[in-house]
């Protein structure tokens, strides 16, 4: 038994990736997620509209952070600002004041309600609080659209991450390398079937989400489909990139899992981005799921128009381009190594 334990330790010492997964990653996750795992929202972007807007601007306590003051603004203006996610709270500063809250921001809504209830000196009902888009504050309405992205990330990244590495392990990658194929032909060829399956997958889980959990869909289908296509390209590209970085299918799955956890924790799916410190929040903005969640929650619940989703669309397109570009570059090393001078480790004895 001692010999077995010793052998396992020796193998583990040489398997740096597993060692990292077992020691470094948990520590990193604990530190990062420790800062992230909080539901209390310290700062809620707020708009003040109406004739009393300017007078009220300096009076609102925390967590309200006034970012827009518009004395000309009306209720329509307020709803539009919320629909476009410019703010989470819009106060119509008339008598009596009305506080419109974006119900798709569950925790911000709860914090806002608590803050209003705690305002001293106000008689009950003095402020009219109205929750828009998700008046019942249904968790399913918030989570199901995000889960569509989560499921697609899991399926897309893990399955495509096995694609190239399987060719490498089975010896067919070398055969591809002597065929007159360009690296981008191979990448596109690898992704296309998974992309189509991903689209079908998306349709099925979206239909299931809408039917089973009674989630509303108020926005535009073309916007949702366009966002889904960009998101799929980004997650499939990430899978292929992982595949080009791995030597075995086991390594590929390890890496895929390593990329999955941050997406779950940092994308805003569970914990609101606004409650994350900037030291961690910047990671969220590198993750495709963050932008997809902004698109789907907006489209499903708020009928957010496409011109208000410019940043998430652009970010998804840029991420897809970057991961696919990196995958092609990495793949060139396998398929057209003549252009890449590197010093690999010696080949196995039997291979010479």
């Amino acid at each position: 038994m001692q010999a077995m334990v010793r052998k396992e330790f020796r193998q583990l010492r040489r398997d740096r990736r597993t060692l990292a997964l077992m020691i470094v990653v948990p520590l990193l996750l604990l530190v990062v997620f420790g800062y992230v795992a909080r539901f209390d929202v310290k700062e809620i972007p707020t708009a003040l509209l109406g004739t009393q807007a300017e007078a009220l601007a300096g009076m609102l306590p925390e967590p309200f952070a006034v970012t827009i003051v518009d004395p000309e603004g009306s209720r329509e203006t307020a709803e539009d600002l919320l629909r476009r996610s410019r703010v989470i709270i819009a106060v119509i500063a008339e008598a009596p004041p009305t506080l419109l809250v974006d119900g798709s921001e569950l925790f911000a809504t709860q914090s806002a309600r608590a803050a209003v209830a705690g305002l001293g000196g106000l008689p009950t009902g003095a402020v009219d609080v109205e929750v828009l888009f998700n008046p019942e504050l249904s968790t399913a309405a918030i989570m199901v659209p995000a889960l569509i992205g989560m499921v697609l990330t899991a399926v897309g990244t893990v399955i495509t991450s096995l694609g190239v590495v399987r060719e490498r392990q089975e010896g067919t990658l070398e055969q591809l390398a002597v065929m007159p194929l360009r690296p981008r032909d191979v990448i596109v060829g690898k992704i296309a079937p998974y992309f189509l399956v991903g689209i079908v997958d998306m349709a099925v889980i979206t239909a299931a989400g809408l039917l089973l959990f009674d989630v509303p869909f108020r926005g535009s289908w073309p916007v949702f489909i366009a966002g889904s296509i960009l998101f799929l390209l980004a997650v499939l590209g990430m899978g292929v990139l992982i595949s080009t970085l791995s030597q075995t299918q086991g390594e590929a799955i390890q890496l895929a899992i390593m990329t999955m956890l941050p997406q779950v924790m940092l994308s805003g799916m569970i914990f609101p981005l606004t409650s994350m410190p900037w030291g961690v929040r910047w990671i969220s903005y590198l993750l495709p799921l963050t932008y997809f969640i902004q698109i789907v929650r907006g489209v499903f619940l708020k009928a957010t128009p496409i011109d208000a989703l410019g940043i998430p669309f652009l970010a998804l397109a840029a991420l897809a381009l970057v991961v696919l570009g990196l995958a092609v570059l990495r793949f060139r090393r396998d398929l057209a190594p003549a252009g890449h001078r590197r010093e690999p480790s010696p080949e196995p004895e039997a291979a010479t």
Partner: protein
Amino acid sequence: MKAIEARALTRRFGAFTAVADVDLVVETGEIVGVLGANGAGKTTLMRMILGLLHPSAGRVRLFGLPPSRETRRRIGYVPQGLGLYRDLSAAENLSFSAAAFGVAAALPPPGTGTGALGHLPLGQQRAVAFAAALQHHPDLLVLDEPTSGVAPLARARLWDRIREQAGAGAAVLVTTHYMDEARQADRLVLMAAGRVVGRGQEADIVGAARAVVVRTPDWSGAFAACEAAGLAATLAGTEVRLPGADLEAVRRALGASGVPAELSSAPATLEEAMVLAAGR
């Protein structure tokens, strides 16, 4: 015309030199065998020729050009591992390969059926690999131990096909450590420790190398005596052969052990020449 022209080809992996200063030319219509033991550098040399590995020094030209996507169109390659998709059928493998080269797919070899290729016997899998490599009519065929693990009759058929290709003008480069395969080549290049240590026909490779042949009724005693004296011996039937050994040294070793034997000197075989080259 030179299908392959490699000059001073060298490949280092860190401090280890896998291939050192190798010159190799393969003309169209010619079958050249690169022979060597495991670790001799054959596969590394072949991978550089195919453009799968960049040389540390030296250069390769295929049809007068550096390895590129264009030269790949003219190459048919059968790796030792076959490079086929085991979960696809023979026809599906051929169809994919044909599409990659932009030609019509060849018919799958008889008996390969419609099931997954991985379930076929190795001989049939090799036949499919050959069909895939030949269906775009390559001008250069690169084969890595092409008939290892194949039954004699199927092996003969595969060599017939290789000869047909060479007869039609294709250049053929075969890397192998099997003598039977090496003997099929028009010309041999013998490699050891990453260097070329012999070239030409079988007789040129063997050259002046000789072996001491021991005939004795006590062949096991003779074998043990030679081994005990530090003389590398092999058994060939009931004869004990000692490639490159000194006749008198063998006589002394057997005499000391009291093994009755008749000794003679004979030309080394190709295998023995390879072993001697590897030991140099």
